[in-house]
């Protein structure tokens, strides 16, 4: 199953001009399929992220857009013209590399001037652009320094200025924040958004950090094992993941096995944790008797000894663990069928259930999502008959840097 961009793009975006079209692109290295039938469009001025674990094909896709790799099949179009086989130095896209790749024998100024000089712009225009970019990344005072005399964050800005100075049609960023420490990284996330607004250039951002992608992106393509699993706004991907992989990779999720019992208008009846309940979504991908996965986000769950709202869906469970985490209390519940549930409840001062209590775990009608099982069993999801018992890809913290 590949997700077509048409299903997910918001109307305002699809009205914008397409800058990059990835048309049924696959990339094969020997017998390893790095990217499989990728199909999506990136629009003018968009901040688009490719998100996924190590080896999901996001960097390969980026390198194909830059021109460092050639698609095995399919085409890449830049503003309508096929550039699949155009070498990198003839493409109007520029890259911020993972380790910045600043020229160590040149000053900051000469690094930024490299692009305009390669394009044979005259001296005055080159100087004007370089000074403009130094202004944009706020490094005016460092023009005469060598890259080794700069901090990681400053090197990052030079790399950004150098890649923007040619006014590319799209800027490609390959995990550019991975080498920075957490504090600096959060600062740079906002900085990147500011710069993108200022220059108005399309940014294509590769990351394995879901929080980073959610923070910065207009749209995200979630990738896994060479496939694009879902494309959508951060909100769409978080609230309506298209499958178990996406649900588990972005944020935390309760994932319970479910069996479809029947279809109603605008709702599907499923059996979950020994209960029969309705999901307000008519998923035609699943027929009666099919098995799928039912998802509820922990922060959408209520944990109460007395159910306060009869309209919510409820399962009864026992509190196994209760952890105070500051703004929320994290509950681990054991359900009658042995499955686990995780709930994040606002940390009120009183009336919170304690371990051993029998409680109602409930959620509103629109909090439950029925997911089709993934086309390919991935390690993160295959063992998930009960969720959150193992440290799979469901923790909200940024994952370890790959590569």
């Amino acid at each position, binding site marked *: 199953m590949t997700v077509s961009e048409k299903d997910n793009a918001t109307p305002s975006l699809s009205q914008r001009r397409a800058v990059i079209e990835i048309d049924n692109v696959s990339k094969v290295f020997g017998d390893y399929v790095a990217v499989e039938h990728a199909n999506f469009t990136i629009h003018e001025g968009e901040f688009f992220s490719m998100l996924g674990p190590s080896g999901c094909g996001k960097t390969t896709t980026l390198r194909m857009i830059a021109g460092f790799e050639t698609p095995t099949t399919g085409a890449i179009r830049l503003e309508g013209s096929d550039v699949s086989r155009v070498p990198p130095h003839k493409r109007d896209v520029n*890259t911020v590399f993972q380790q910045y790749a600043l020229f160590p024998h040149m000053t900051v100024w000469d690094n930024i001037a490299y692009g305009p000089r390669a394009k044979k712009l005259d001296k005055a225009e080159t100087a004007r652009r370089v000074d403009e970019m130094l202004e944009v990344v706020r490094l005016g005072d460092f023009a005469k320094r060598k890259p080794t005399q700069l901090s990681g964050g400053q090197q990052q800005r030079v790399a950004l200025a150098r890649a923007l100075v040619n006014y590319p049609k799209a800027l490609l960023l390959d995990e550019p924040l991975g080498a920075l420490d957490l504090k600096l990284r959060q600062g740079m996330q906002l900085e990147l958004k500011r710069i993108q607004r200022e220059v108005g250039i399309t940014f294509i951002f590769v990351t394995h950090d879901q929080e980073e992608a959610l923070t910065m992106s207009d749209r995200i393509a979630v990738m896994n094992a060479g496939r694009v699993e879902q494309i959508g706004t951060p909100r769409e991907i978080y609230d309506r993941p298209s499958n178990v992989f996406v649900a588990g990779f972005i944020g935390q999720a309760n994932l319970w096995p479910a069996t479809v019992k029947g279809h109603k208008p605008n709702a599907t009846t499923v059996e979950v944790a020994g209960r029969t309940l309705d999901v307000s979504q008519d998923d035609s991908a699943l027929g009666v008797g099919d098995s799928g996965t039912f998802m509820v986000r922990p922060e959408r769950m209520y944990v109460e000894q007395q159910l306060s709202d009869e309209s919510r869906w409820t399962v009864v469970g026992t509190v196994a663990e209760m952890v105070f985490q500051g703004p929320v209390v994290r509950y681990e519940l054991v359900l009658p069928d042995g499955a686990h549930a995780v709930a994040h409840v606002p940390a009120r001062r009183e009336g919170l259930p304690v371990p051993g209590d029998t409680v109602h775990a409930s959620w509103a009608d629109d909090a439950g999502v029925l997911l089709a099982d993934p086309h390919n069993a991935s390690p993160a999801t295959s063992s998930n008959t009960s969720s959150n018992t193992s440290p799979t890809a469901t923790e909200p913290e940024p994952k370890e840097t790959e590569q």
Partner: protein
Amino acid sequence: MSDKRPFRSRILGLWTLGVYLWLFAPIVVVVIFSFNSPAGKFNTSWNKFTLDNWAHPFRKADYTEALITSLQVAAVACLVATIFGGLMALATSRYEFRGKGLVNFILVLPLTTPEIVMGSSLFTLFFARDVSFGFTTVVIAHILFCLSFVALTVQARVRGFDWSLEDAAMDLGSTPWRTFRTVTFPLILPGIAAAGLLSFALSIDDYIITSFIAGDQTTTFPMRIFNANKTEIPAQVHVIATALLFIAISLMAIGAWRTVRRNATPA
């Protein structure tokens, strides 16, 4: 324990001094004897101090001629070997290709082959092909044994080279040739320069291989000295040897100074 340590370090100091004496005694002798006024044809026993040799370093015409031949051979061999050896180093470092392991192995072979073997086999090769011995065959031979040294020296420099710099340059619109000229070459230049100096020195120095294939008309500086050492050793030999030594030392010092200065730029 406390009084053992100075004793130990004194032994170590003496030992180090001994090693340095061992290494440099012959060189010191050459330098000293360049200021000797020899009593006979052999500048091998101390007679009296003179600056006369240094005032007339090129008095012995046949030695001067041999020196010029050596410098010409070294210049051509060094240039060709540096270019081709450098390219070989880039190819074997940058690209993956079939038979890369074999190429690397073959690169090391000339270093481990005894010179007498290489000399005699080159002699056989040229003789069998009816190639007349002379300047050209000497240059070919020198390029041959310099090539491996250059390739391995440049390889060492290129190892750890960040190839994403080339990607970055091309990404910014630079053609492959401009990328090489403005990024790759300046960054590997120190390695290339070191390799060039090394091959120049190797070429100037070689006697064994050269003597096999030089023929009757071509005589290099080492050949000239060796062929005459039964009949004479003029002081000019010591003068020229000392001069070459100091040129080599100055070049190394310049290189070291530049490195130090580059690294010492205030952060």
